[in-house]
């Protein structure tokens, strides 16, 4: 019996970024699905039940990514997929890696399982994904 490959959902409003990141995931034999906006993301999360989510935190607004993550982790409508690991992906990296790090917990928002800067380094991304899928 062969187990199917883990499925990864890439949520990003930039189609080129989704295209550029997909080969990294495919190289490690993950199934890749994608969503371009929060509504599509919601639909795919519930119908496809991905094993891990890569979530751009700067979609229409900084708030979208944060609130989607919070909803996945706490909202009853996502109860079935609550334990899905979420990695925040952001192009707004700053010195010492601190400035735009998740600060939502100050407002009672649940944060992601990991955080990675764009452009993502293939080896770094794959290592983080593997670590989260194992745990």
């Amino acid at each position, binding site marked *: 019996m062969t187990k199917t490959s883990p499925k990864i959902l890439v949520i990003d409003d*930039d189609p*080129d*970024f989704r295209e*550029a*990141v997909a*080969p*990294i995931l*495919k*190289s490690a034999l993950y199934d890749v699905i994608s969503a371009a906006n929060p509504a599509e993301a919601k639909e795919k999360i519930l119908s496809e039940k991905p094993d891990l989510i890569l979530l751009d935190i*700067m979609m229409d607004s*900084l708030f979208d990514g944060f609130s989607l993550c919070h909803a996945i982790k706490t909202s009853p409508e996502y109860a079935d997929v609550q334990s899905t690991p979420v990695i925040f992906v952001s*192009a*707004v990296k*700053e*010195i*010492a890696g*601190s*400035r735009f790090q998740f600060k939502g917990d100050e407002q009672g928002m649940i944060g992601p399982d990991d955080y990675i800067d*764009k*452009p*993502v*380094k*293939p*080896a770094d991304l794959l290592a983080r994904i593997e670590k989260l899928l194992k745990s």
Partner: protein
Amino acid sequence: MTEQKPLVLIIDDEEAMRDSCTQILLKSGFRAETAEDGAAGLKKIKDLGPDLVLVDLKMPGISGFEVLDRLKNLDPHIIPIVITGYATVDSAVEAMKKGAYDFLPKPFSPEELRIIIRRAYERRKLILEAEALRTEKKLLEENFITMVSHQLRSPLVTIQQYFEVILAGMVGPVDEKPKEMIFKARDRLDGLLHLINDWLDLARINKGQIVDKFKTLDIQKMLEKLIDFMRPLAQEYGVAVELNTAPAPLLVLGDEESLEQVFTNLINNAIKYTKPGGRVHLNLKIDAGFIAVAVEDTGIGIAKEHLPFIFDQFYQVHRSQGKKMKGTGLGLSIAKKIVDAHNGTIDVSSEPDAGSTFIVRLPRP
């Protein structure tokens, strides 16, 4: 704003007046609250935040004039209308001077009340709308830099992502020559991203905002953390980074985030301009009302003629020999702007081929 009906507070010592006004207002699409004297009225203004206030000028206790005086402190945009039994020109003028929007001489007809209240509410809506627009504009300005940063960076980062994937050989084999060129393209793009970052940082540094975030900081702890963070870079350049330790915590008054940037820039420079085997030494001491942080390197140094300009924007020392240094020429300008916002000082002394020392003085709490 909520869909709730506008709220009118009636402050009058006569019960009959309060009741009749309430009846008229309720029938005209408003909500009404009442208070029988000035003190109770002011409390309701504070607690309920009405849109409009009808206030009788002649009341026992706090007078209508005094209510007018005080309600603007509770809500600067509230619209007061005075009711007066003595419709003298004098009292009306005085009330208007104190900020009343209009006045109603007793006795008045329901229609007169309705006309005045509706007009006053139109005014209230206009004022609130203008206020909301002002707030929105301010927010936009504050977010402008973040948005521009995002708009500029996003496409570049996506280009970088394509390069990363191609270079990792994940979309097919790449020959040596094209690979070399893509590496170079990636490096140039990296430089451009750094430049955008630095430029936006420079625009973002704002004395008022920095001062707002002032708190007491243990500067030694902060430097230890930064050095730890920069250890991989130091190892890459073969440079040792040391910090002398003080027996007691050395405290400064400052904004943690921006000060981290100052010392990141200084230590980063010190490492990059020092040859392998060299060292970067950070020395902390109390200097009167200041803590002086010296960042000392054994690097290539800066010639005397360049020293006066190194804090200028985009100034880079052009060197005839040695490898080209990567940088945007903004790191020291950013550091100086931040230190200035702290009412501190930043100074440099240097000896070519011996090393440079940057001294930052920051005020103690």
